């Protein structure tokens, strides 16, 4: 019955392939930056500032004469790291809370869901600003802020998907064979909702990169001298008319990562749930 493998089904999705290529470019850039960059991303060369693209400086230089291409490469590390850690925090705590809510029902479920509602009442970027304002700016704190915002997202989606699975016959059968509620949600429900969670994690990865860029733009994320796409955008705005390319490069980098991950998530969803794909 398994006529085509999951990977083949994914590769037939155009969104998935484009997303995979774009995300691959960003990941390759991050990996490359560990072994090679054309110049040091922090080396200042004021006489050569605001240079246009050339064979020595592929993307030109910024207002301190730093090499923009090197900064973009190194900046991708930052974005990916923030995305991974923040989504991991969100998935680990959010999924656990969501499963607990659907396993216990009653007041536990109400408490978890009302807490999620409460967190949702604030716009994501606002609560991230709030958290970094309290904890102080920096990469770690911005990761925490974005991670905390991810928790209710995953708690909600987990509980919703888990409740649908819990109503299925095989759950009753599992209970009839003497399994406790916690065991059932971990062993029987979680594997059945993992596709939903994978798709959501991919999309939230993109949102996390965007949020990190936003926080860095506001000066609350990654601090100098570590390069970050968000801060590059911020610094470029003073020179927007003299050197517009300075804004375009980090902007395009952010767009590539976010678009790539979104398409990847869309493609995964279509591949994991063929019914949804046909309905669209």
């Amino acid at each position, binding site marked *: 019955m398994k006529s085509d493998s999951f990977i083949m089904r994914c590769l037939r999705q155009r969104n998935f392939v484009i997303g995979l290529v774009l995300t691959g470019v960003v990941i390759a850039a991050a990996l490359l930056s560990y072994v090679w960059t054309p110049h040091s991303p922090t080396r200042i060369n004021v006489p050569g500032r605001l240079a246009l693209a050339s064979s020595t400086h592929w993307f030109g230089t910024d207002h301190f004469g730093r090499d923009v291409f090197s900064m973009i490469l190194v900046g991708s590390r930052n974005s990916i790291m923030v995305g991974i850690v923040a989504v991991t925090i969100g998935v680990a705590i959010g999924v656990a809370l969501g499963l607990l809510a659907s396993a216990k029902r009653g007041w536990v479920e109400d408490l978890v869901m009302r807490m999620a509602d409460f967190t949702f009442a604030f716009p994501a970027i606002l609560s991230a600003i709030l958290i970094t304002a309290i904890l102080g700016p920096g990469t770690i704190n911005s990761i925490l802020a974005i991670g905390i915002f991810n928790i209710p997202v995953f708690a909600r989606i987990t509980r919703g998907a888990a409740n649908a699975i819990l109503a299925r016959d*095989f759950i009753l*059968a599992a209970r009839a064979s003497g*399994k406790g509620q916690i065991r059932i949600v971990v062993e029987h429900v979680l594997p059945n909702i993992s596709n939903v969670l994978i798709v959501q994690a991919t999309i939230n990865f993109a949102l996390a990169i965007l949020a990190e860029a936003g926080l860095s733009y506001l000066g609350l994320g990654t601090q100098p001298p570590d390069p970050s796409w968000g801060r590059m955008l911020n610094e470029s705005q003073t020179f927007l008319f003299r050197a517009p390319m300075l804004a375009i490069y980090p902007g395009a980098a952010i767009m590539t990562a976010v678009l790539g991950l979104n398409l990847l998530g869309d493609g995964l969803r279509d591949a994991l749930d063929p019914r949804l794909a046909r309905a669209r």
Partner: protein
Amino acid sequence: MALLAVDKLAVHMPTLRGKVPLVREVNFSIERGETLGIVGESGCGKTMTALALMGLLPDRAIPSGQIVFEGEDLLAQPESRLCQLRGNRLAMIFQEPMSALNPVHTIGHQIAESLILHRGLSSSDAAAEAVRLLDLVRMPEPRARLSQYPHQLSGGQRQRVMIAIALACQPDILIADEPTTALDVTVQAQILDLIHDLVDELGMALILISHDLGIVGDITDRVLVMYAGRVVEAGPTVELFHRRAHPYTRGLFGALPQPGRTRGSPLFAIPGTVPDPWSVAGGCAFADRCLLVEPECRAALPPSVEVGPAHTALCRRTDVTT
């Protein structure tokens, strides 16, 4: 003392219209090696009774009465104790084998789970035992099945897997809730034979729930006929099939197609429909559909009448023979 004794079991469901009785005053007991059939139409409380025995009633349902299993009242036990008994001493087979297996786990994994949980086997021992169980339920190529997923099996094969899971820990009581309803007729017969043989082989008690009188007549020792949540007639299968005392039981038998029936002649149908559980007041729930109804039937619940050896019916008009 009986292996399982059910005394005045009732299940109520709280709703906006108040507590609705789904099962009322069900009494029976069953011994090891005995088979008990519960028959009745959809919504008569058969499945609710079974779920109550397993402690698997829906969250809001309220059971009352006593279910005494080897001296322990199951309704009074905490969930943790019930988890130890379920799948281990009490096992259940469900109606829908197509959806009662988890699609993301292999057959081997799902059989082994119970063995590891209740019998503390190592995973390699559990796999070996799973092969033996699949062989026991006459599954062809049992070893190859272990790594297969539910969607790779047919309905009959899945029901065999369900039976293997139910039998994994050699339960004392096996509850089979319409085990063959979702299967086609030839497979039905095979599965029933299998269940019947296994009950004999392993000396379990079997509670078989069905709406199919033929199945119940074939393999049970005693029968309970349920209507609107109540047991309206109970007795040894042979005796009860011979001398149908309650008008509802007679109606059920009358509705069976008979061999030699003229083609195109309508089947007998019991007039009316099953009353809503909340509209049954003091009298006999069957009164509105009964051909022998008397004014007293609506006024008060009929007495339990002994119509034969160990054969009782909840009716005033058992004197009438058809």
